[in-house]
């Protein structure tokens, strides 16, 4: 891929996009698990916080979230720094702000996927673990979570595709991702259509790879398609 010498720039941008998406996925999965645990908690206050998290985050645009964390984050950090007597300007790194915003958004949707998957497991699983003398925490990590992955995988795969496309939003705050590099290249060459189209096809390629990996994971997590015997 040459594209008047800008091909390598686009590929570098695509690599940044992949890193951003994978980092946000890892952090977002943790948020999702915490959110689902909160929503299924015995404590009313945790359920209420979980509800607040999913309602707020799913109702506001991801772009607004990115902008708030990028611009508001430095205000917030400077405010906290001010209490400790540090009065220099603090800038939030675009990558960190991007990971924070995208994982918060991903986590809110993942909360619902995990919650549904946990609830789908028969209650008997909890009861038999209790009968064996396991604590609730141990039951969750040893019995419930391994089974939840399989049930949650299709939903999480869809969410990852949404996440992959949402990474483009972080270019708005100046991260050198695929979208940003296409913008730079089209500024030099005056051929915006060519470069945005190239970027679009790279995104399509990434989506196809993500779908394929999800499919393989789904197959691997299901004993029937994996060919295991009962």
């Amino acid at each position, binding site marked *: 891929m040459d594209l008047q010498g800008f091909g390598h720039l686009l590929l570098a941008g695509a690599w940044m996009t992949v890193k951003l998406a994978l980092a946000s996925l890892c952090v977002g999965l943790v948020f999702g698990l915490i959110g689902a645990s909160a929503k299924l908690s015995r404590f009313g206050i945790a359920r209420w916080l979980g509800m607040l998290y999913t*309602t*707020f985050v799913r*109702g*506001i*645009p*991801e*772009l*607004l979230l990115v*902008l*708030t964390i990028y*611009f*508001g984050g430095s*205000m*917030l950090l*400077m*405010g*906290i720094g*001010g209490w400790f007597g540090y009065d220099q300007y603090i800038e939030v790194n675009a990558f960190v702000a991007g990971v924070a915003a995208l994982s918060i958004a991903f986590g809110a949707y993942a909360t619902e996927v995990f919650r549904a998957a946990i609830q789908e497991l028969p209650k008997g699983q909890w009861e038999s673990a209790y009968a064996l003398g396991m604590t609730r925490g141990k039951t969750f990590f040893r019995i419930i979570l391994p089974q939840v992955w399989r049930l949650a995988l299709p939903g999480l795969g869809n969410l990852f595709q949404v996440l992959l*496309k*949402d*990474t*483009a*939003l972080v*270019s*708005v705050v100046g991260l050198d991702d695929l*979208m940003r590099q*296409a*913008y730079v290249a*089209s500024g030099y060459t*005056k*051929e*915006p*259509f*060519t470069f*945005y*189209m190239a*970027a*679009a096809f790279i*995104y*399509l390629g990434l*989506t*196809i790879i993500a779908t394929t990996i999800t499919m393989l994971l789904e197959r691997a997590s299901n004993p029937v398609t994996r060919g295991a015997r009962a």
Partner: protein
Amino acid sequence: MSWDWSIIWQYLPRLLDGALLTLELVAISGLIGFALAVPLALLRVSSNPWVRALPFAYIFFFRGTPLLVQIFLIYYGASQFEAIKQSVLWNVLSQPYWCAIIAFSMNTAAYSAELIRGAIQAIPRGELEAAEALGMSRPLQVRRIVLPRAFGIVLPAYGNELILMLKGSSLASTITLLDLTGMARTIIARTYTPLEIFFAAGMIYLLISACFIGGFRLLERRLNRYQHYRHHIAHEMTDIDPRLQD
């Protein structure tokens, strides 16, 4: 750091102006998108693979790429071609407002078409066979049975799509439009109070989503009223005979 409520109240009217543009963008592109989605979905379920191929490619492209790319492709991309710049099309494509509408409409058309396709395929076969048995022609079946049933089935999912569209409309701010997000960014550039103003904008977005959800619940009761019909009868019967309660 201090939190300043007065700045929110001071700029609330401007934010509401922005919200109005956001609603306008969502409403217009929602209507155009839905009008495009219906034929796309009907072609997508065709038994002829050649007819299916085109809507499939369209839907695949628009669902597989970020909305931001699509907006930039239309807004910045169109200027690359001298032929477009010389034609009457340029009157439309040189305006960010219309570029946003075109991008949003085409994007939501792809997502909605896929939802409607799912709904069409979810219609019980017996209903189509019954229509066939009554001697209805294909176009009549589509008009009287397939589409009305599909709309009822698709409604809850379409409500979600509309909320995703509302959130996507914030991207209009990247091509200079002063929608709710764009307005918030302009205000912040002047006042430098990102936390307060973005918080206020977020609350307005939440409020609009809540209205959408409420509106769709009402519409769903109306379009799927056959589902509530039995309850209604059951209630009347329990009024007559207390033994039928439970």
